[in-house]
């Protein structure tokens, strides 16, 4: 088993937390994990890309090859399209539907949504609604983790465990709200 994920979004949207949640869950299941992150200049409101590879055997490259990703998982619709070349023809694209507009030439949102829905396996997630229902406006990224859950080679239970570990320092309330966002994301 080998599962490659391209995670993307805009610096500050919590892409690394999405990666950490899934990577930790895979670690809990004793799978091999490689996770390549972006630090430094690009984190300042720029396009952010992280490669996450999960396998039951040794992983060599930190980078996912083009046309090989089983999933593109994005916090932002425009960014999900930017890395489509990584996706396998039968792969799935999951993106938050809400745009993050910090550039003056952001395209018409409906055309971005249209282009995404033309991809064979694509899912747009209303993360705002889920975050609201989970009573944590900052849980949009966990809604995305939840939406990815049923495709990932890890159990929902492991994702729960991972989130409990990662958010432990922030208190029980935050853990609970993030778990709720994952469940709501998983239910769509």
């Amino acid at each position, binding site marked *: 088993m080998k599962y490659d994920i391209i995670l993307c979004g805009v610096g500050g949207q919590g892409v690394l937390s999405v990666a950490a949640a899934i990577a930790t869950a895979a670690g809990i299941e004793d799978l091999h994990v490689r996770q390549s*992150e972006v630090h*430094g200049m690009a984190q300042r*409101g720029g396009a952010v890309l992280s490669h996450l590879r999960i396998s039951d055997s040794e992983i060599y490259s930190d980078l996912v090859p083009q046309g090989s990703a089983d999933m593109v998982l994005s916090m932002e619709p425009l960014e999900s399209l930017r890395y489509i070349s990584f996706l396998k023809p039968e792969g799935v694209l999951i993106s938050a539907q809400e745009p993050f507009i910090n550039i003056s030439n952001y395209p018409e949102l409906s055309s971005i949504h249209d282009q995404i829905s033309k991809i064979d396996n694509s899912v747009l997630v209303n993360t705002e609604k889920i975050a609201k229902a989970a009573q944590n406006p900052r849980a949009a990224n966990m809604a995305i983790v939840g939406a990815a859950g049923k495709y990932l080679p890890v159990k929902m239970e492991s994702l729960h465990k991972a989130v409990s570990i990662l958010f432990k*320092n922030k208190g029980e309330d935050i853990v609970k709200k993030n778990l709720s966002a994952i469940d709501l994301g998983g239910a769509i």
Partner: protein
Amino acid sequence: METYALLGDEAIALGAVDAGISAAYGYPGTPSTEIMEYLQHINKETGKPLARWSANEKTAYEEALGTSFYGKRVLVTMKHVGLNVAADAFMNSALLDIRGGLVLAIADDPGMHSSQNEQDSRYYADFAHIPCFEPFNQQEAYDVMSEAFELSEKLHVPVMIRLVTRLSHSRAAIKTSPRKPENPGIKAPDVKQWMLLPALARKQWHQLLGKDVQMKQFSETSSWNSLELNSKSVGVITSGLGKNYFLENSSEYTENYSHLHIGCYPLPTDRINKLASHCETLIVVEEGEPLIEKQLRGILPQSTNIKGKLSGDIPREGELTPDTIRSVFGLSPKEQITFDSSELPGRPPQLCKGCPHDDTYKFIKEVVSELSESAVMSDIGCYALGALPPLQVPETIVCMGASITMAKGAAEAGMDNVMAVLGDSTFFHSGLTGLVDCVADNASVTILVLDNSTVGMTGGQETILPSDRIKQIALGIGVHPDHIHVIDAHKKDHEQNVQLLKDELAYKGVSLIIPVRECIEYFRKKKRTEKKEN
């Protein structure tokens, strides 16, 4: 034996601690920063080792030399271009009789994710005549530290670890070994081997050339350089992450390639010859400059067919990927979904919302727009993002500290209205000496030190000294008190800041304007820490 999921940088840090270092010094710079951050994290938990940021890479390197002089193991860390700053200390340190192991972890940035060039630090190791290790995954990054310190103490030379962004910033699980004890403090036994006076330096140079032979022997027999002879038609030489990408595609190869992986330098020439005499063609896959390939080719004609970056079979620029090396192995690109993403608008990094630099650039921009001739020399830091739209104020960005000195040169060439823009940490790093030059010659420059009280770009490390001392330093050096202004970097003061800058540009001498406001990210980080601690 414990397992951790660590970044390559963190694996280097933990490896150094487990190899028994007493101290570490460095200057922040992407992608090397997390080495020191992790050491500081370990220090916070266990009280050891000493893990300090320095004013710049040169001071860091020299501090490390001092630790080594006292017989203790020490790590010094910086990014590739940082080694340029430390190069004086570095080159000379190769001639010293190193007793306490001295290892430098240098992180290169192929692809220039967060840097101004793609220089390959392996050249520096070759230049200085020191050994260099190149780990290809996180486990090796951990394991290499112990071996590097042993080699440093065995051959009495500094040893380089060359990292690249993709290893520094990738996470994987590693297994650790028991921690070694620190060395006792023992002064270098022969101080004559630490004094590079010409007569003594000649002896040290002679000795270093002798060590070249030992280094070569090490390299030839080391398990870091592994040769596997299979196919007689094609042999592959990989180094660093090139190995990962070569193996990534291996399920698609129709041939069982002969393979030499180079993980330490100087180059194992015997093993290379063995491979070359076994195979008709060699493919060289290395991250960065074609350093190995260039040495293989030399100048004179040769019988072996060599494919790599110089032959144009692998891209000469940017980062290696599993995709960029496919064609040299005869593999076609993988099937992709048809979609042209080149039409999508780019999303370059930008100043954070509410960043104080934004307000400073706005008043500079207004003043500049009314001048017939002007120059804004800038520097390396967050404020460099002001060069991109919509601000587009900085006009030069070269290297740490160059803003002030380039401004001086342009002003002395007769240019009017020359400004230098740099941050507080960059000022302490290497702006200070430039200011000395300006005052010495009473250059007509207006220097703006954008004081946000932190090293912003690399994630908010503390500035080496409280930045409110910059004013006192300038006074002490001799900038005229009437031409030093500490102002608020805030849009409410926009009009008066515009007027102030105009006045100072009209002054024919050194002016220093310090717009002050805390970095918005640093401010948030501080609040979060306070909240956690309460």
